[in-house]
Every structure is written in structure tokens, then in C-alpha cells.
């Protein structure tokens, strides 16, 4: 497929799929709590409503930053998701696009943080400082895990080449070697924190600091922030499913010919990943405190990611 066409068509696709994912997540969450829950297309209703609400900018806010940051956040996460998706579909890879995707994801959450801080609300300030420490906790293991792909058997940081490597070995990357397995585990452990769901929703804890940096956002800004969050959650799960668990590679060369089938398998795998790393934890755990979360991330995922890099240097 032509790269430009793939890139452009992936914008609406990313939006629709990530919102659907969020709807499914909410539905399953509700069913696990023994209730019916909202319809699956609920996020669409929410967005339509939010975009048509009044814009209120608090007096204490620095207006420009407050207004622009949600847009940057949404743009960055959509761009990241569509780069990932289009590079999966089309054979034309940009060199180092894995790092680019990770950067854009981090960028989107940083933009939200800064925008929230600009609102001047004390709760937003606490949310900012909490998110900052959380990002230090989870971004480092995540980046190390991604970099270990470059040290490992695929020896590249390009999505397209990683996929081709998996197809050539006819095995998903996470199964192929010990180092990649631990890198995949690191990423999976980091998803709840990056998506900021219970037990790691400390920066947005509703009952403690009332959504943290989102407290003053309302109407269209909140809609943009919601899009940014939904899309970046989707991107994270898709990233793991494409880079580490590319199940279509079991089909061999056919995976590259029947793009539709391989894409739908990828989406199904990322849905499963979302269920396991976002929906289930937020149903069965209580929220941790920031110190405890920090300790957890620097105990387990960081150790795992360093292990993966050591293993891949050794060549396991």
C-alpha cells in the first residue's frame, strides 16, 4: 500500500478504533462489577457532547498555554498512533520510528501536564508533581525495553524491519528469545501506569485530587484530553502487539500479502492486552500511593528491562 495513503487513512481509523477500545473497556469493567454499564459507543456520545459545550477558561490560568496544550497532546498521540499503524500496514519504514512513537506518547502526556499546571489550581499542581514522578518511574524501564530491541536479535529500531524479522523467524518476538520476553513483560507492566488507571492512577486520583491536572479543563479541551488519553492507550497496546506479539508472523509471508487479516489479528491481540493490563487491574486493585508505585516500578520493571538489555547483549 502507498505510504501516504496509509498514513492519511490511518487518522480516522485510529480515532474510531481507540474510542471503541475505550468503550469496550468501560463495558467490561461494568460487567465485572455486576452491572450493565454504558453502551460500547459511549465515548463517541461523550465527545460529541463535550465538543459542543461552553468553553470556560479559569481566571487564574495563563490562557494561551491552557488552550494550546490539549491540542498538542491530542495531535501528538494521534500522530504517534498513525505512524505506528501506517508503518505496520505499508512496507515503507522510517528509520528509528519506534523511538519516535515513544517520544510522541511521552510528549502527549507532558503537554497535558503542562496545560493543567497552567490552570493555576493547587490540585493541578499536585497532579503535575505526581505525574512527573510517575513518568520518571515508568518511562525509563519502557525506553530501556524498547532499546533492548535494537541490541537484541532484530538489531533495528524500525517497526517495519522488526515485523519482517518476526515473519522471517515465523515467531512473535516475545517468544523468540529470553531477552525479548523480559522486554515485553516490562512494557506490559508499564502500560497501567502509562494509561494511568488504578492502581497507578495516582496523578488523576478522583477521590484524592479530583482528576489532578484535568480538574479545570471542561468542554472541548476535556474532549481533546480524552482523545489524547484514549489514543495513547490504544497506541501502547498496539505497540506491544506489533513489536513483541506479532501473531500473524505464524502465517509466514502471507501476513504481508493479506494485510487486512494481519491487521485485524493485531487489533484483536491489542484488545486482549488492553483487557489484561488496563481493565483487569483497574477492577481488582486499590490505588497505590506515589511512593509505593515508584518503588514497584524501580524494583520490578526496571530490573526486568536491565535484565533484557544484558541478556540481549550476551545474545540470549
Amino acid at each position, binding site marked *: 500500500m502507498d505510504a501516504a495513503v496509509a498514513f492519511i487513512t490511518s487518522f480516522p481509523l485510529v480515532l474510531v478504533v481507540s474510542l471503541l477500545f475505550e468503550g469496550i473497556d468501560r463495558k467490561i469493567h461494568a460487567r465485572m*462489577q455486576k*452491572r450493565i454499564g454504558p453502551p460500547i459507543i459511549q465515548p463517541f456520545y461523550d465527545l460529541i457532547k463535550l465538543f459542543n459545550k461552553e468553553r470556560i477558561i479559569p481566571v487564574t490560568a495563563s490562557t494561551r498555554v491552557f488552550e494550546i496544550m490539549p491540542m498538542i497532546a491530542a495531535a501528538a498521540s494521534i500522530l504517534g498512533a498513525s505512524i505506528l499503524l501506517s508503518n505496520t500496514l505499508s512496507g515503507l519504514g522510517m528509520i528509528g520510528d519506534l523511538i519516535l512513537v515513544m517520544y510522541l506518547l511521552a510528549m502527549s502526556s507532558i503537554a497535558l501536564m503542562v496545560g493543567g499546571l497552567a490552570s493555576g489550581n*493547587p490540585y493541578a499542581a*499536585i497532579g503535575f508533581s505526581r505525574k512527573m514522578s510517575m513518568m520518571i518511574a515508568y518511562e525509563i524501564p519502557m525506553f530501556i525495553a524498547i532499546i533492548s530491541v535494537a541490541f537484541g536479535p532484530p538489531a533495528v529500531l524500525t517497526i517495519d524491519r522488526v515485523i519482517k524479522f518476526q515473519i522471517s523467524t515465523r515467531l512473535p518476538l516475545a517468544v523468540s528469545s529470553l531477552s525479548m520476553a523480559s522486554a515485553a513483560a516490562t512494557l506490559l507492566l508499564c502500560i497501567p501506569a502509562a494509561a494511568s488507571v488504578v492502581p497507578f492512577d495516582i496523578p488523576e486520583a*478522583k*477521590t*484524592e485530587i479530583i482528576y489532578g491536572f484535568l480538574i479545570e479543563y471542561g468542554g472541548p479541551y476535556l474532549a481533546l484530553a480524552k482523545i489524547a488519553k484514549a489514543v495513547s492507550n490504544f497506541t501502547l497496546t498496539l505497540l506491544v502487539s506489533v513489536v513483541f506479539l506479532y501473531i500473524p508472523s505464524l502465517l509466514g509471508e502471507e501476513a504481508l500479502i493479506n494485510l487486512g487479516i494481519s491487521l485485524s489479528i493485531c487489533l484483536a491481540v491489542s484488545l486482549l492486552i488492553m483487557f489484561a493490563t488496563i481493565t483487569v487491574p483497574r477492577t*481488582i486493585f486499590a*490505588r497505590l500511593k*506515589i511512593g509505593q508505585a515508584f518503588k514497584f516500578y524501580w524494583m520490578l520493571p526496571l530490573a526486568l528491562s536491565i535484565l533484557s538489555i544484558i541478556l540481549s547483549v550476551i545474545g540470549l
Partner: protein
Amino acid sequence: MTAERDVEREVEVEYTRLRIPFGPIHPALKEPVLLRVSVRGEEVVDVDMALGHVHRGIELLAEGRNLIQTLYLIERICGICSHSHTTCFIQALEEIGGITPSKRALYLRTLIFEMERIHSHLLLLGVIAYEIGFDTLFMFTWHVREKILDLFEKITGNRIHHAMNTIGGVRWDLTPRMVEEIDAYMREVEKSVKYIHNVFMDGTVEKRVCGLGVLSYDDAVKLCVVGPTARGSGVDIDVRRDHPYAAYDELKRDFSVVVERGCDVYARTEVRILEIFESINIIRAILDRLPDGPIRPKENVFRLMRGIPEGEAISLVEAPRGELLYFVKTDGSGGLKRLKVRTPTFSNLIGLKPMLIGCEIADVPVIVASIDPCLSCTNRLIVIDQERGESNVIDVDSLRHRVRRRWMRQ
């Protein structure tokens, strides 16, 4: 030298602290209270409390109304422990009027009392789960609570305000079918509460509630905290055992007072969970030994009200949150001269300060919830002008005059 360093430290604390108004409108608080929390980083260094957001002037309103009207008015002091309030008030009236309710009425009063305790404790367990972000446990607990509310609706006709008490007895009787239903429900509730108890020992929950909000035994005695808050700190007090009222005198052997020595949030939570089991035991004993007889005097309630002479009495009950005290002074013609209510939360709120200082921001809602604050109980007859920061004491007589005038106007 050390003094200098202290001053230096104080200046630094003053410079780096952030004052956060926690409430009065906050999703963690179902009722408005304002906690001015000063934090440094995540650590709480100082707490200041401002009450009075739910102050409705009930004690004053009661003085302008007759006893029956007051009975339903004071039921609206609190929606969670409404039966405790009316029981306490009615007991005082009966003492003044020399009316003895029948055995069956007393047993029924106790039955509703204990059911209310179960419902209140389950509600609190749900709220604690909600504060720590454990939504599923919250949903589960509140679903179990629905069963108790169903029973309330079947027995008394409303889920929250039971309107069970009347002068000299109770208003609704139990039918044999209801007895069976209560028994069956109690079995279900017992099973579910055992499950909830198990889930409260989950790792993430334990990380959030253990070793937090410590209120030592000495502090608890010094600050006169009551109810489960005191019992969680090892203070062995319970009005039901110490000054038995209603039918508790005869049910003494069917329950024991739960005392924990953990002093933290978890201890207070566990006291409540174990008290639910004790309440179930009491309810079973009541159903076994429910005496026959009339539930209320044959006389018209209006005539009974007229028959209450001038006098005063103090009454005590053990509400779900602790000791509840009423002082009632009647005027002999069916009205009240003075009503004074001291609610358990009023005593317990003072205990919050030693609990909160030194904890993290994340712990504030959990600790506040752990004393089970019932602020609508607490806020009465303190007039404080918050905006100007001055307390505005209005002369009682002029206040009474103004209130009468408004009541007439409407």
C-alpha cells in the same frame, strides 16, 4: 543553637508549604466539611477544620414545634443513623412522661437499631473502598447493603427514614413472614460480609490502610473519642453494655464488644466488620425471643404528647458511630423548652488532627472516612461567618424571635 535551627526550619516549612482547601465540595466527601490542609511535597504538616456547612438550626427549630413534629424533624438530623436519633429522643420523652413501652416494642426498636448498624457499617466499608480507588469492592459492598434497605422498606415503609418510633412504642409490627425473610437475609449478609472481610485483607488494600492515621490509646482517652474510633484504639467502651437501654439489658449475653488494639485505619475498619457479625447475632437472638404483646399504647399519639409533663431528661444510645447524647427539656404543654444533641462525630472529629499530621495527601480521604464522619449530625448551633473569618454570636432570644417571625411568614 537548636532554637535557631528550629526557627530556620519553621521559616523553610512556611516557605515551601502549600495550602490546599480540602472540601467543602470534594468527591471524596459526601458531606461538606472544609479541611484546610497544609502540605509540603506530599506530607501533611498542618490541618485546620471548619465546620458548619450543614448547620440548619435544628435545635432551635425544635423549640418552636410540638413533640410529634420534632420527632420527625430530628429524624432528619442524619439520614444514616436516623433511628438512633429518634430512639434517643423518645427515650428521654418516655422518661419524663413515665411511659413504659411494651417488651415487644423495645425488642423491635433494638431490631431496627441493629439493622441500621449493619447498614451504616456496610456503607462506611464501601466508602473506604471508594476512597482508595477500589471501585469494585465499593460496588459489591453497596449491593449487599441494598438487601438491608429492602428489609427496611418492607418493615417500615422507607429505605432511609424509618419513622419507626412513636411515643410509647413503635409504629410498625413484624409479621411472621418478615421474621423468616430477615432470617434468610441475615444468612446472606453474613456470607457476603465474610467475603468482604477477606477482600479487605488484599495486598493493595492493606498497603493503603495499615499503619495509617494512628490514634494511640492515650490520645483516644484524652480526646474523648467514642464508638468504633475509640474501640479501634483499644478503649473498651460501649453504651449498649455499660448503660443498657431498650432491650439490650436482656440481650447482654448475645453480643460482645469488639476491641482492636491496632490504633490505625485498618483497626477501625476491622472493628466495624466484626461488629456487623455481632449485630447479626443480636438480630438472631431478637428473632428467637421476640415477645408477644401490643407494640404501642392504645391512646392517640396526640393525647400522649399532651400528657407529658414539664421536666428534663438525658438519654444515651450507642449510634453506629458511637455514643449519642440527648438533653431534652419539655414545657408541659406538648412543646420543648430546650433540646441539646451531642453527636458521636462531634467527639470524633477532634481526634482527626493527631491522625492526619504526618500522613500523605493521598491518605487524607481515607483517614477522614475511617472515623466515619457524619457531619450533618454534627453541625448545629454554631454561627460562624466564614467569609469574614469572625465568629458571629447571635443572642439566643433575638435569634428565637427572628426564627419565629420567619416561620410565621411562611
